[in-house]
């Protein structure tokens, strides 16, 4: 059995525990672990999945490049993102041209923190950091507009502390040969009640996302290969966010 120790605070801890219970030949361990999940940046003694990399200090993270450390860019493993990336990497979409993301959350959170993972998706789909950028920041709001080499472009719209109790995520990636749409609007179900019609939206499945990410983490260790995401990816995103904030 592959043993994973989890040093992450709740409620994130609960997600990791839930995900581990769904994995084959993987179990939670409090000692003698094969790997570690932690949200604390430090020189790892075990292969480590670093949770919340968006909170990391770029200098500290830069010093850790080369260490056995996979940053938790979890949105790359979200159920709604995987088909988009697969269609892109398999060439179905052709050259990526435009990525559009809307992400509106009810919880109070810094929009820049939320933007980390969405900007990471943009870097990932366009296979490079951007070469131009613009940012508009307001209270609980961030709009980021990025340009990529070869003409690609991304618009990321983030709003936090929204009224109500439903988050909303809409994403589409348009390429030269096709497009992929992952859209909460299209996935709306209707509740017709006393107050009229209410839209029901299934939020992104957090446990599945963590499980998918853990599968990659464990597979990379078992297969002795580099993980699909690394600290350089984290540093690129942090650099982009810093760059556009000053634009």
């Amino acid at each position, binding site marked *: 059995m592959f043993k994973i120790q989890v040093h992450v605070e709740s409620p994130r801890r609960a997600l990791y525990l839930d995900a581990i219970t769904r994995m084959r030949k993987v179990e939670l361990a409090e000692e003698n672990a094969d790997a570690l999940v932690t949200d604390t940046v430090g020189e790892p003694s075990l292969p480590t999945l670093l949770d919340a990399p968006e909170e990391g200090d770029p200098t500290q993270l830069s010093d850790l490049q080369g260490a056995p450390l996979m940053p938790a860019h979890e949105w790359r493993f979200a159920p709604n993102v995987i088909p988009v990336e697969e269609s892109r990497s398999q060439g179905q979409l052709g050259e990526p041209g435009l990525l559009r993301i*809307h992400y509106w959350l009810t919880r109070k959170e810094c929009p820049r923190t939320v933007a980390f993972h969405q900007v990471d998706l943009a870097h990932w789909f366009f296979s490079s950091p951007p070469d131009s950028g*613009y940012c508009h920041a307001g209270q609980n709001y961030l709009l980021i507009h990025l340009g990529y080499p070869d003409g690609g472009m991304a618009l990321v719209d983030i709003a936090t502390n929204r009224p109500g109790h439903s988050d*909303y995520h809409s994403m589409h990636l348009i390429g*030269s040969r096709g497009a992929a749409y992952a859209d909460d609007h299209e996935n709306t179900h209707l509740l017709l009640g006393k107050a009229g019609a209410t839209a029901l939206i299934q939020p992104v499945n957090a446990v599945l996302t963590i499980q998918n990410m853990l599968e990659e983490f464990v597979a990379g260790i078992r297969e002795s290969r580099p993980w699909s995401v690394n600290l350089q990816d984290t540093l690129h995103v942090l650099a982009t966010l810093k760059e556009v904030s000053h634009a």
Partner: protein
Amino acid sequence: MPEHVYRALVLSVVKHDYLPNAVASHPRFQLVAVADDPDCPDWIHERNQLFADQNGIPYRRDVEAALPDCDLVVVSPEAERHCDLAQRAARAGKHIVVDKPLSPRLAECDALVAAVAENQVKCLVWNRNFLPSLVKARETLESGAIGTLQAIHCDFYFSKDAGPPKGSRGPGDPPIDWLERQLEAHADGSDGGVGTEPLGELQIEGIYPLAYIHMLINSPVERVFARTTAHFHQANVDNDVDDLATVTLEMANGCVGSLSIGRIGAAAHPDIGEIKLHLLGSEGSLVISEARPEVAVYARDQPPTEFRHRRIADENNYLLMENFAEALDHDKDTILNAHGARDIAATVQAALESAKSGTIIETAR
């Protein structure tokens, strides 16, 4: 007492004919003739004559001679001639319904705005602001349901092909001639960019989503940041015009907005394309699919070019002409007048400059 029926002169109808047809279908308007300048190329005369014959009205190759015998003009030539014909009508004291875009050149838009004001005529620039989804969006905003509008975003994609795909030109092949390509596109109504001057998607279609934003936010655009590219079609590459663009908009009232627009190819959507609005307010949010309501029809042996989703309850044409009739009857303003369309043209111009320079550009006010 029966309401006055306004007599409409069609000044050129060389692209899709939905504009004069929309005018003709409203009971308060009657088409009386088609007219154009005598020195136009043959293909223009042919299209004008065809429309005149289909509608049982004469075609006159003399605009100035035809102008006295009408109350208003319906201007639908190539975009590069929109303002010239409209100005001449304004100076003759005639009201104007003009197709979009107003003009690729801001100076011409300014001249038309001045002519309209000086001659106190009404001007309606064609738009889609009376689509049922936009009417609903406006009503919802005005009701206060989402509070104060803070941000507005519009996706406006047509999933149509526009000739051979990018990268298809063989070594030694000549570049695609823009006018020839547009003349070919007339068959499926995709010739909004017809003319000798190549136009990108932002110039051809940008007025529609920018008019949505203009209506809903009611504040001028002050600054833009844009990216454009020819991503899909060889004709756009060869003529150095965009078929994909993103624009961020900063409004005078502090709101922010964005537009993503493109002619993204027939393979990129199961239907005509994704047209959507996202509105963020202080008390709530609104997500609008511009095409709905619609009915979907799927059938064996359905032609691949037939759109599966059919818009229903679309009163845009009727309501636009109703709005124009009211403007004429009661000396009111139209839902999108020359000034508003001019501001939209200024936004487009600034966006193209921003895309070229990679910097934020202020719109010309």
